[in-house]
């Protein structure tokens, strides 16, 4: 390794945090609007026969995943490819991580390839901020523990706008395991940023204080335009923590069933779904569900994020992507 350019003990947050996408709190409303508009342009480009754009030719996007992922890793990889960037996906399983290599050394090693963007998913809060201090690459946080997953929030906003034609004034009920959910933390901030509002609904121990108004009563979802269902994250719960007495009791009280929904409501879920626990299979497969739309949005939103980070700043998006 040539230039460790980094820490040596001087761990400080980067001076220019906006080079990265670490948290929704790094974004302004203008940033969000610009990203959603860029995503929209890319969506139009994806309707053409030739879906690949030359925009990021010669750039390198590294996907670094320390946790399992289907949607996020595949959509980042495809997003980079559709923009003609080179991509490489690094998974901790089967790598030197299993030989005990630290995140710092892995990050420095991968940085030696001079990536333009590192997309990182990691089980620990602060991992993306940590890697951002180590590398010259732009870092996109694809999930750091229970903290943040900003591209998920952006794709959720995009999906809502496509479904409702607006974001301002939308009312979203976020149901379930908020405590362990980086998706919920990012989404609440993003909704507030665009003038929508959120209410948290779920069992007492799984609703942290101070994020948004909250209630334990499922009847509160009746007012919502969107019922956003969270996965019960059993893998993040400490053994013996007794967050809920049983999954059966959880499903009975807080499961999203057809009976609890009303006409016109849309249902979203970040996946993967535990059918029969937080969401009834009949809801998941209904026309009310936007789950597949979310996945589709994920591709174009992540294209927009990569584009925005590398072709810095607000530029005339439509002309840059060559769509009218």
């Amino acid at each position: 390794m040539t230039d460790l350019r980094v820490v040596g003990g001087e761990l400080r947050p980067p001076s220019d945090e906006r080079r990265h996408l670490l948290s929704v709190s790094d974004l302004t409303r203008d940033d969000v609007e610009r990203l959603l508009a860029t995503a929209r342009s890319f969506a139009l480009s994806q309707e053409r026969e030739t879906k690949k754009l030359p925009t990021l030719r010669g750039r390198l996007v590294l996907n670094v995943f320390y946790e399992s992922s289907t949607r996020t890793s595949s959509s980042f990889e495809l997003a980079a490819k559709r923009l003609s960037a080179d991509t490489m996906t690094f998974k901790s399983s089967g790598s030197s991580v299993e030989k005990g290599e630290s995140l710092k050394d892995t990050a420095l090693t991968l940085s030696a390839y001079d990536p333009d963007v590192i997309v990182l998913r990691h089980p620990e809060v602060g991992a993306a901020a940590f890697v951002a201090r180590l590398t010259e690459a732009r870092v996109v946080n694809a999930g750091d523990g229970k903290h943040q997953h900003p591209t998920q929030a952006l794709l959720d906003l995009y999906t809502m706008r496509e479904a409702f034609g607006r974001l301002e004034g939308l009312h979203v009920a976020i149901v379930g395991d908020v405590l362990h959910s980086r998706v919920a933390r990012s989404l609440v901030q993003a909704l507030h940023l665009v003038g929508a509002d959120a209410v948290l609904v779920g069992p007492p121990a799984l609703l942290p204080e101070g994020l948004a108004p909250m209630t334990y009563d499922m009847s509160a979802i009746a007012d919502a335009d969107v019922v956003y269902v969270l996965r019960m994250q059993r893998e993040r719960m400490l053994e013996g923590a007794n967050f809920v007495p049983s999954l059966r009791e959880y499903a009975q009280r807080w499961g999203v069933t057809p009976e609890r929904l009303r006409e016109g409501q849309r249902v979203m879920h970040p996946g993967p779904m535990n059918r029969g626990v937080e969401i009834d299979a009949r809801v998941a497969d209904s026309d009310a569900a936007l789950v597949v739309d979310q996945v589709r949005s994920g591709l174009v939103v992540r294209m927009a994020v990569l584009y925005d980070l590398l072709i810095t700043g607000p530029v005339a998006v439509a002309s840059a992507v060559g769509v009218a």
Partner: protein
Amino acid sequence: MLAGRTGADNVVIRGARVLDPVEGLDAMLDVRIDNGVIAGLGLELDTNEHRVIDAAGLTLAPAFVDPHVHLRTPGREDEETIASGTAAAAAGGYCAILAIPNTDPVVDDADVLRSLRARALEEAHVPVGFMAALTKGQAGAELTELGALADAGAAGFTDDGRPVAAAGVMRRALQYNAITGRMIAVHCEEQSLTRGGHAHAGQVAAELGLGGWPSLGESLMVARDLDLAGETGQPVHLMHLSARESVEHLRRAHAGGIRASGEATPHHLCLTDEAVRTLDPNMKMNPPLRTEADRAALIDAVRDGTIAAIATDHAPHSPEEKDVPFEAAPFGVTGLETAFAALHTSLVVPGVLRLETVLDRLSAGPAAIFGLERPRLAVGSPANLTLLDLNATWLVKASHFRSRSANSWLVGQRLQGRVTLTMAAGRVVHEA
């Protein structure tokens, strides 16, 4: 109780503002030290061919006593040694420190204790009091041989790093400790409430998705140990208090005549959990940084003497341990070399605390709690003193620490107030 070299330096410190709050002394004087002992305080003292230190514009104060230092020796000499930790202490203005026994092996028998004291006599830049564990292996079950350990020179007893979980064990420890005359210091943490906690259970942790370490996790145990101290009639010292509820318990206990003391750290006095938003692992401590209301309560308690000691809880960690994401990082930060400057910059310069109060809580306060000789600026006392430049500003750099570790929350910060000279037990041990 302290192990370390004594010295017989001959020095005249000329023209300093000599400030000893306990002695009621605040005057521009010369101080002459003969054979390591203060021999004269006065104007235009004869130098007697002593070395003369021009201290015009500087403040001379009793040197500091830190009752809470992790020297990491034995076991983690890569993080700190007796030599490096005491060099850091000297640079911070300290003339004595107490070392915490949560080492590897734990200091829970007299042989380990004696070997450490012997090493301190060789290596230590300032005298060290070694505390011994309260329970074997700090496992919270069986008492160590408190009597034998006290006879071998234990400076006090603590299982710091972890609580004594069982009230019955704590009660027996307090009762039996009546034979030693040493202080029991407790790390108050109810672990069934703090498990999985990485930051204060509040708004910041909720937003960051960090497991919460609630105030009650500390204050519940504080209340228990104060009640046990009251019931047994034995004194107890509460380490690194962080929550306003804990301070309220301690104040009530004092009003009820319970013999209890408390300490606060510079980081809990200067920072709140807002600092955790940086996700800098050097903002991760146990107990965690709390809210502005907690910080204000700690400052009030330091001001009115409810908290009589400021302790650094100097906790060195290797870069491998701290160069990780916040959630993966161990708790603890260093503090010996920055304590005075941090307190001076954050609390004295803005007028929150008086200089005299801070000097007292760094020196006379902790010395009294642990039964150590009080550093004094008085004729006949050994030279335990520190010379401070209250106007100097300096940038804290990771590369400049005497400590073997640089996990300081202050790296990159500019501080006002600098230790320019320290004498401990009659020796000049630090000169900037």
